[in-house]
């Protein structure tokens, strides 16, 4: 199993390097095995250097949005290694500004041809990926109800204009 692990690691690492470059539009991301005290096996550390920045690769100093983009790059790297015909995402765009959200959507579009997506979001940019939109409302307190939504029905609070 150790060999399986190392092969998996090598592949996931390559995926991550590529994802990082794409999500950050440059820069350098990597995965590194590190020995840890008290741990029999080495752990996995993340090296992340956004373009133009000289932060020595430590992810702790990164901003909230940069950390999220890095983690998304890793999640996608794992997904690419073991692809599934279905991918479900719950508000992963929450800490992202519009530029980063668009880059995330462009990356997801690449998969949308071969993967069926179910994405929960509050973000208008992500909503634009939709082939189908459902709204969930709670008109009766405590009871959820599903409605179909057309893109033009969505206002800034997500759903209050529509009850189709």
């Amino acid at each position, binding site marked *: 199993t150790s060999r399986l692990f190392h092969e998996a690691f090598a592949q996931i690492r390559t995926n991550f390097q590529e994802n990082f470059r794409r999500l950050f539009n440059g820069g350098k991301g990597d995965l590194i095995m590190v020995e840890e005290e008290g741990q029999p096996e080495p752990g996995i*550390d993340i090296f992340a250097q956004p373009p133009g920045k000289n932060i020595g690769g430590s992810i702790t100093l990164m901003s909230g949005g940069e950390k999220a983009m890095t983690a998304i790059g890793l999640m996608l790297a*794992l997904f690419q*290694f073991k692809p599934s015909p279905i991918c479900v995402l719950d508000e992963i765009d929450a800490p992202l500004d519009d530029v980063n959200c668009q880059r995330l959507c462009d990356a997801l579009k690449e998969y949308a041809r071969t993967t069926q*997506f179910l994405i929960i979001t509050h973000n208008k940019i992500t*909503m634009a990926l939709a082939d189908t939109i459902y709204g969930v*409302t709670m008109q009766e*307190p*405590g009871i*959820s109800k*599903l409605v179909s939504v057309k893109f033009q029905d969505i206002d800034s609070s997500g759903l209050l204009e529509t009850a189709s």
Partner: protein
Amino acid sequence: MFLKRLELHGFKSFAHKTAIDFMPGVTIVVGPNGCGKSNVLDAMRWVLGETSAKSLRGAKMGDVVFRGSASMKAANFAQVNLIVNNEAANLKIDQTEVMVTRRLFSDGDAEYQINKQKARMRDVHELFLDTGLGADGYSVIEQGQIGQMVAAKPSERRDLFEEAA
């Protein structure tokens, strides 16, 4: 394999029978805070055999049964049906369409079905093994999981990789 339909009845805030039809491509779910969007994801993971109440945000498994509200009393059971198209034969079953059912009664009685045949939880687990949809897959990223990924220790990340490998 792709999702066709998810039916919820008495599951968390979905007191009434609710059906979500999935089209190919991207399905987006929107709505205000607390309206039930993440509960839909919980329903999917639950019907596929999630065993940890904590990972469904509950203290015990019975927490998934609709507890009642100002206008409606608690449900007797929670049921979720997931209907999947299997024409690509990813699932180890000789059917082009597969329905997985999980039901939990408030007295604790529990039941799984595959195409309306009584089944065990492990049958469901084995059916979805290697599709990425099981508990070992990376197909479902929950709310807050990205933040945890960042904060994780190197050894915790290794565990994540080992599940993939």
